[in-house]
């Protein structure tokens, strides 16, 4: 950035600024003429959508913070005051509440798109890893944000999740006490969570900047997963993708608005409208929906791992669950080295595609299991068994199937270039419907 040839601008003010700080040159290069593969499908909208949701969350969050008070005796009332007394406060809070969910929807689609089309593969490994860092930061931010209204789910969700750290041998309990700033989730916990909830989004923003920077070094992947070979394979980002992204963002916002205005509490839990009570635990503690698959993995490990035929326990069930849950995300960090198959896109890897679609279904099923109580059954089979099976598939997919496929899957022939593939597609389309050809 900043080095190299500057662009020339006709507007003297822009030219004056740009010759001193070449922000307009940067914008022009990175978002104006930036060569982008011409064959994106609509799944490539979700990066821009996630970006918009991040901005929406930060803007509404700053305004909410101006009306909020972090104090166990006042926070619930402060949030209700926002809902009832502050002008348009309900709108801002409902946007923030549901915005978190829709941010996660966009990011989950973005992540699974990256997996499906092999966007994490060389040379985009670091780009992918930065993305996983963003996802982890989002989870942390969302979790502590859910504590701030200080309802029953806030308190008990925070209690359960922070207690996970007590599974760490030797230092676990001290870590939990440190997190809490006391001997239970209480006022010190709430105030530090508020401080962190305000800080972390800006950290996310910074990592997003690095993520986009890394993207602009390698250039985007595309549905074919083959490299661009020249100008005939690309289009300038503006106006082609600026306009397409704007359209995609608006369609996404339609769904967001539909939920925010007509079913604002659909994704939440009623118990969080009961003020936090340290003496009463809700019957079912359920995390927010976007944590459910990982929550199911946590709960799937219900057995100790030890030396057979002895009483010696090496990994307790509690620690095992925590390791499995964090491991499930940690695997994403090393994904570029688990799936080393030279073909990126699943379009040309039928075997990978099948196993991957099963993984997506598995992940959704894990989410369903996570939403049910621990002793629930489905078709007469205890869900805990199914949870264990689904967890097993998740890990087998990453640890065994991907490396095996990398070595053994043949794959289909790749097209020689994006340009040719696009022409091919156009031709077959116009043969089918002549009036579609212009």
């Amino acid at each position, binding site marked *: 950035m900043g080095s190299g040839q500057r662009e020339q601008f006709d507007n003297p003010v822009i030219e004056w600024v740009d010759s001193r700080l070449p922000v307009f040159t940067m914008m022009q290069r990175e978002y104006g003429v930036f060569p982008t593969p011409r064959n994106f499908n609509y799944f490539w909208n979700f990066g821009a959508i996630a970006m918009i949701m991040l901005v929406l969350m930060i803007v509404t969050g700053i305004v909410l913070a101006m*009306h909020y008070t972090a104090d166990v005796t006042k926070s619930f009332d402060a949030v209700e005051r926002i809902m*009832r*007394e*502050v*002008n*348009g*406060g309900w*709108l*801002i809070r409902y946007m923030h509440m549901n915005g978190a969910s829709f941010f996660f929807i966009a990011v989950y689609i973005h992540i699974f798109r990256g997996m499906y089309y092999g966007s994490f593969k060389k040379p985009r490994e670091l780009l992918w890893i930065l993305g996983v860092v963003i996802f982890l930061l989002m989870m942390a931010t969302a979790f502590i944000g859910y504590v701030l209204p200080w309802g029953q789910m806030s308190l008990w969700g925070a209690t359960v999740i922070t207690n996970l750290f007590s599974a760490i041998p030797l230092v676990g309990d001290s870590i939990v006490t440190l997190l809490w700033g006391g001997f239970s989730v209480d006022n010190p916990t709430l105030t530090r969570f508020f401080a962190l909830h305000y800080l972390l989004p800006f950290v996310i923003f910074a990592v997003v900047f690095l993520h986009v920077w890394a993207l602009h070094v390698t250039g985007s992947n595309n549905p074919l997963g083959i490299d661009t070979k020249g100008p005939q394979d690309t289009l300038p980002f503006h106006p082609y993708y600026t306009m397409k992204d*704007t359209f995609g963002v608006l369609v996404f916002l339609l769904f967001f608005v539909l939920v925010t205005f007509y079913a604002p509490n659909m994704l939440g839990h009623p118990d969080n409208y009961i003020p936090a009570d340290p003496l009463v635990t809700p019957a079912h503690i359920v995390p927010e929906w976007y944590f459910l698959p990982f929550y199911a993995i946590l709960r799937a490990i219900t057995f100790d791992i030890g030396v057979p035929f002895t009483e010696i326990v090496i990994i307790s069930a509690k620690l095992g669950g925590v390791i499995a849950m964090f491991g499930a995300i940690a695997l994403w960090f090393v994904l570029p080295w688990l799936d080393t198959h030279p073909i990126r896109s699943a379009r040309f890897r039928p075997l990978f595609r099948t196993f991957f679609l099963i993984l997506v279904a598995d992940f959704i099923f894990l989410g369903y299991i996570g939403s049910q109580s621990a002793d629930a059954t489905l078709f007469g089979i205890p869900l805990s068994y199914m949870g264990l099976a689904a967890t097993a598939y998740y890990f087998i997919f990453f640890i065994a199937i991907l490396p095996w496929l990398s070595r053994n899957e043949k794959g289909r022939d790749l097209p020689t270039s994006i340009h040719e593939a696009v022409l091919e597609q156009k031709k077959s389309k116009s043969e089918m419907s002549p009036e579609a050809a212009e």
Partner: protein
Amino acid sequence: MSTDNADDNSRRDFLQMTGAAFGAVGAVSFAAPLINSLNPAKDTLALATTEVDVSSIPVGEAKTVMWRGKPVFIKHRTPEEIEEARSVEISALPDKQADEERVQKPEWLVVIGICTHLGCVPTGQKQSDAHGDYDGWFCPCHGSHYDTSARIRKGPAPKNLQVPPYEFISDTVIKIG
């Protein structure tokens, strides 16, 4: 390029202008409620009245009460102070206002105790305070002098101390707001 003809180009221009206009309207409609939320909330506006029992204030003494988060001076004026306030030549005042316009009952002066210069609270509520050159109130921040009707007489303040809306709901109880 297949769309060289002028019709298509103008249609695109029109569409793009409409799109830009919608974008601008959308951005403003999104920002408006966020900014409006910073205005006083409904409960703040509802808490707009304060009732004060003034029977306990002796002649010559004053009392400060809170109304909408601001100090309100209630002064039980002596006949001399009333006389002093009313004998002034109105045309000589910076902010021309007769004492009669500023009080409902001559012995009770009710004003918002915030200097009209930059918002400090003037001294003069207690006998021992500085009262300024005109026996009323004195703002220590930038030296504004107010008289016994709390009118500005000397110093940088542009206006007299403001009179809040109030009414006597009985002989001894004032409702402010």
